[in-house]
Every structure is written in C-alpha cells, then in structure tokens.
C-alpha cells in the first residue's frame, strides 16, 4: 500500500494513530488546546468494533476510567492539558503503583493556575519528576511534529504494554493545533497477552487483583524496588535523543518538542554565520537520554537549553553532563514561542564569549 500523506492537526493525528495502535477506550474531558483529540475520538470510536468514547464528568473520572479499562487489559487513553493533568495526579500515581499500561496525553498550555491556553512546556517537572505522590516514573515522549504525534502514540502504547508502565505524550498547544502532512505508521505488532488483567477468571485461574495497597512496609518497599529495577531496564532500552549537526558543535542547543523545531531553524542560521552550533533534542524525557548528552562533551564548550518555561529541563541537562560545562538557559512562558531569531541571538552571544575566551 502506497503511503499516503494526509494533512491533519497534531491532535487529530495522535488520535487516529492511537486507534490504529489498538486503543479501544478513550476517556476525556474537554480542555483547550487538546479538545480535538476528544472530538476526533467521538467521531471514530463508535464506528469501531469495541471502540469506546466517553466524555467523563471530569479529568479525575477520566483517568480513573482509564485505570479501570487498563486494569481489565484494554489499551486505553486519556488526554488533557495542564490544569487537567494536575487533577489526574492521584490517578496517575495509582496506575503506576498498579503497574498498568496506558497512555496519557498532555497538550501543554501556559500556567500556573488557569494561566492561558497558548503553547507551553511548563509541565516538564510534572511529567518527569512528580506525576503524583510517591516514587514512580512515567515513560515520557516528546513529539516535535505532527508525524511524531502519530508515531509516538503507537510507540507509547507499545512501550507501555511492554514495561507495564503508564506512558505520557508531552505535547503542547503548538503541536496539537498545527497541521502537517502525516503518514500513518503500519501497525505490525500484535498486542501482548495480559494474564494479570482483572477481567473475570472464568473459573479457570485464581482471581486477579489490581492493587497498590501494601499495609506492610516491607511489602510496599519490595514492590517499589521491583519497579525501580524495571526502570533500570527501561533506561537502558528506551532513552532516545535526536542530534543535528552536533559532530563538531561547540555550542549545543538543546530543547524538546516544539522548541526543538525553533532550535533547528536557529542552528541552521548560526551555521550560515559560521558558528559551530548543533542541536540535541531529547525525544524521551523519561528516561532522559543522558548518554546522548555525554557524547557531545567531546566538542561542546557550552550548552544552551531552550524551553517554553522558566527553566525546568535545564537541571537534567546539567546532571547529564555532570556539570562539566556551563549550561545557559533561555525561555519564554505564557504562550510566547521563542523565535529562531531570539535563539540565534543567544547562540551568537555564546559564540562571542567563546571567541573571547570567556567560556
């Protein structure tokens, strides 16, 4: 079958790809700028064998419906934007504590509080450090194009099942709202068996229990340790980054998601001016691609981290390179998207410093 390019919004491409990846239950609650995902699902799911679309009464209900569907072994998804994702924290912690696979989409908008509805990347901490109370992690994928929105939906479902972890797609209003041509991936992989699912034992096996309660501290600790051992495997197998012109780069500009597009434009412009700039874009935010950062140390003199936030990923960059080089930060918040020109100016200033020997 010839691959067909279709022009779609990121939100819609993600929804369509999720369905192709075998997502059979979508539970959500409207919030800008991700509502197209729900709208798309409401059109498509009723036409699909076993497909469920349900607009929940709240984000909390939605995540707990996902919990139920995932506990019964079905590929399930919810999506929201920043304030709505805050509300899901408890549910996310439960899902992680029960080792359930599912996909949670955060199409980020400006915060804190009600904030605004324009693109933002200020939920990095919430996604990578504290999706809720307790020790746990989410798989966090950061798409940078409409094509990624589609591809990562599939990737997220597959990895979630593989590692029995909730996966988050950390997008933003820019990627959700923009249209680009997208080619839908061929879905090859069959879904894995889920013998642990609570879906009725048919008198054929002992009853399954989905639970995160361990009143005995040693049992709770054991479950945490087991989970973190699994995380070590995930770190080895999943950490992913994209590099662009980094081979000889003195200035590594780093940023994820939509921001990486702006960085790429700026790096191109810098190269035109003879500045050795390169881009390092983390594709998975958890696990954070530390090795990819370390690999750039051989040429890098300085790092520039660009985010649509007050600076959240910047500490992970420092840790990845073990504070061996200065890491500068440049960001915008509130829905203002950094321009390639602004980033270029930052790069030039750093280049100047390098030339002057100040770095």
């Amino acid at each position, binding site marked *: 079958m010839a691959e067909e390019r279709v022009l779609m919004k990121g939100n819609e491409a993600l929804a369509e790809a999720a369905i192709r990846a075998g997502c059979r239950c979508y539970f959500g609650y409207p919030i800008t700028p991700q509502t197209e995902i729900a709208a798309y699902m409401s059109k498509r799911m009723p036409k699909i064998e076993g497909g469920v679309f349900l607009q929940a009464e709240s984000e909390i209900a939605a995540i707990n419906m996902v919990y139920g569907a995932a506990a019964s072994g079905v590929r399930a998804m919810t999506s929201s934007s920043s304030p709505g994702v805050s509300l899901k924290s408890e549910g996310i912690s439960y899902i992680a504590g029960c080792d359930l696979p599912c996909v949670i989409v955060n199409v980020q908008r400006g915060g804190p509080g009600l904030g605004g*509805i324009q693109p933002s990347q200020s939920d990095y901490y919430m996604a990578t450090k504290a999706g809720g109370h307790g020790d746990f992690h989410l798989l966090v994928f950061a798409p940078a194009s409409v094509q990624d929105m589609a591809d990562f939906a599939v990737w997220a479902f597959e990895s979630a099942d593989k590692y029995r972890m909730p996966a988050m797609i950390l997008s933003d209003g820019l990627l959700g709202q*923009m249209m680009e041509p997208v080619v839908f991936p061929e879905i090859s992989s069959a879904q894995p068996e889920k013998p642990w699912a609570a879906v009725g034992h048919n008198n054929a096996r002992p009853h399954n229990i989905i639970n995160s309660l361990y009143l005995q501290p040693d049992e709770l600790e054991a479950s945490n340790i087991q989970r973190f051992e699994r995380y070590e495997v995930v770190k080895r197998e999943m950490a992913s980054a994209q590099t662009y012109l980094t081979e000889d780069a003195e200035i590594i500009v780093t940023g994820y998601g939509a921001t990486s597009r702006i960085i790429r434009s700026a790096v191109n412009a810098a190269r035109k001016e003879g500045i050795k700039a390169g881009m390092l874009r983390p594709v998975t935010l958890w696990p954070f691609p530390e090795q990819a950062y370390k690999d750039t140390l051989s040429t890098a003199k300085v790092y520039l981290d660009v985010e649509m936030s007050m600076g959240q990923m910047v500490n992970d960059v420092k840790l990845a390179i073990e504070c061996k080089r200065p890491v500068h930060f440049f960001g915008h918040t509130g829905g203002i998207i950094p321009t390639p020109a602004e980033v270029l100016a930052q790069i030039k200033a750093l280049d100047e410093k390098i030339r002057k020997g100040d770095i």
Partner: protein
Amino acid sequence: MTSEIQLAGFGGQGILFAGKVLAYCGMLDGREVSWLPSYGPEMRGGTCNCSVTLSDEPIGSPTVYNPDILIVMNEPSFVKYINEVKPGGCAFVNTTLVDSVSDRKDIDIYNIPATAMAEENGLTGGANIVMIGMLIKKTGIISMDGIESTIRKMVPPKKAQLIENNMKAIRMGYDFE
C-alpha cells in the same frame, strides 16, 4: 524555496480554511507544509490569523513572523501585519473591509474588494477563496490545476455545489483586473 504566508481577518471570515487550502495544495504538490492557526476561547468577534509555510525542506518554526505573502481581510489585521511583510514580499488586501493604505514601496500590494465581490455574486462567505484566486495569479506558488484538485479533495463529493462555488470564487479572484 520556502514561502511563508500569513492570513488574517475576523473570526468567521474563513481565514483558517483559506490557509488550509493553501497548505493542502502544497502537500499535494509534494512539498513540506505547515499550518498553524491562532486559537482562543470560543467567543465570537475576535480576530483570527493563521500561518502557512510551504517549503522544499523540513520546516522548523511553523510560526510566520515576517511573511513573504500576507492576506488581510479586515482593517485591524491590515494595521497589525502590513509592516511585518518581508521586503520584496506581497500583500493581498480585502479592500471591502480595509480602509487604510500603506505607503510601503518595498512590497507589492494587491487590492481586491473580495467581500463585496463575493456577496454580489451570491458567494457570501467566499471572500477568502476569492483572495486565494488572486494569490494564485500573482504569485504562482500554487497552480490552478493544483487548487482544483485540492478543493475536490477537501470538499466531500456530495457537496458538489460547494465545489462549484469555491472554483467560481477562485476564478473570480484569478481574473480580477
């Protein structure tokens, strides 16, 4: 080659649709394209704009800051964007709803009373497409053939009348002056 296009006007004037037509057409031409709308709360009455980029290489920032091509459909948008156009670029102005004039000499400004033309021809709401027609004529960044197949793909076949109307609007803009 990369063309950065900005479209702007009132909500309800079909700004987003016009942008989508351009992007779709570019895609069918096998090019890289991106389309980025302004978005806001639902309430009516605000302005609306949309960035479209057509390019032969991967597109970085999808936001258009300094368009090669500007399409403005109302007064506030004209005021806001006319000075952002790249020197050497061009602007298409819906004179039915734009009173101001610009004294920029470094860009080509094409005036067309698109709203009036559409209304007079029973194509209410078609001013956006009229302007696309003129853009095709003046810039050639998309072709008449391309636009026809685009519209045939974008509009469901059962709405044949709509296809006809859109093509009529295109031709009106194309043939203007």
